């Protein structure tokens, strides 16, 4: 079981993502933004951070990194891909997921333990949760407001493609309190909160995030 984590210039959370993969029982593989190579991994994580300094728009430059050509192709073939925070922004800019992330409506950077509800427990990244289960993981972003036009939002809701939703007060102005979505097939999931920071009791917000990584390990073993 080999879980690849892409490092872009400006990625911050690639180390924690690799640690989470290993905590879930996978071998973590370093993938480099400049390589046209996924090194035969079974799934890919695009980690949080500020790829290419967030210049232009968050994720806009990363979309054109050589490794993303391979990620887009493999995602189309069903490879599980998880984008966390900046990774979610990259997936939206790459059109692997609908919508976009814009500056928080209250203009402040948010950093806190965030309550979420898992709404879709059928994706390869969420099978170890129950639909309706509430979890708490860190949320830390300045541009985490999820936006899309009303027709897209209705389609996402109608097709059950809202994977996680914020519980309680809206932390960043996301439309319909959407914290994460998936593509139609379900193999590509993006979310703003950081499950990889919640995999160890010693380091903060509990272990509620570990399920994302054990889910994909289970999904890959089963297939």
């Amino acid at each position, binding site marked *: 079981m080999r879980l690849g984590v892409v490092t872009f210039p400006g990625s911050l959370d690639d180390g924690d993502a690799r640690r989470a993969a290993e905590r879930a029982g996978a071998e973590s593989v370093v993938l480099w933004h400049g390589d046209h190579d996924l090194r035969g991994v079974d799934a890919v994580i695009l980690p949080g951070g500020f790829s290419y300094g967030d210049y232009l728009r968050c994720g*806009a430059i990363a979309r*054109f990194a050589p490794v993303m050509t391979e990620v887009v192709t493999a995602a189309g073939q069903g490879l599980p891909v998880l984008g966390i925070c900046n990774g979610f922004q990259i997936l*939206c800019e790459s059109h692997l997921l609908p919508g*976009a992330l*814009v*500056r928080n409506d*209250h203009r402040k950077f948010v950093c806190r333990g965030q309550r979420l509800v898992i709404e879709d427990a059928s994706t390869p990244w969420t099978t170890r949760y129950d639909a309706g289960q509430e979890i708490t993981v860190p949320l830390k972003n300045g541009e985490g*407001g999820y*936006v899309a036009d009303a027709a897209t939002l209705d389609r996402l809701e109608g097709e059950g493609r809202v994977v996680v939703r914020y519980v309680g007060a809206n932390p960043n102005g996301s439309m319909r309190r959407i914290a994460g979505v998936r593509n139609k097939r379900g193999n590509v999931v993006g979310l703003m909160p950081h499950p990889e920071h919640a995999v160890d009791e010693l380091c903060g917000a509990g272990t509620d995030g570990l399920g994302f990584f054990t889910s994909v390990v289970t999904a890959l073993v089963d297939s």
Partner: protein
Amino acid sequence: MTRVVVDVMLKPEILDPQGKAVLGALPRLGFEGVRAVRQGKRFELELDGEPDDARLAEVASVAEMLLSNPVIETYTVRVERG
């Protein structure tokens, strides 16, 4: 050399917190009577020679693909004469 200017603006229905922050600062300068501020981006592309329609269409394509995100933004392309 020709300068081609691409202006990118958030769509009207997308909240612009930066514009709101600027709007909030204006009265503190004593500048009153401003109803709204929207903040955008301006790109200046210095092109070799005089661009024909095909070249400007290429600029539009770059504006669509990279300089703007059509989900949240609109863009305009114009040639700036000396």
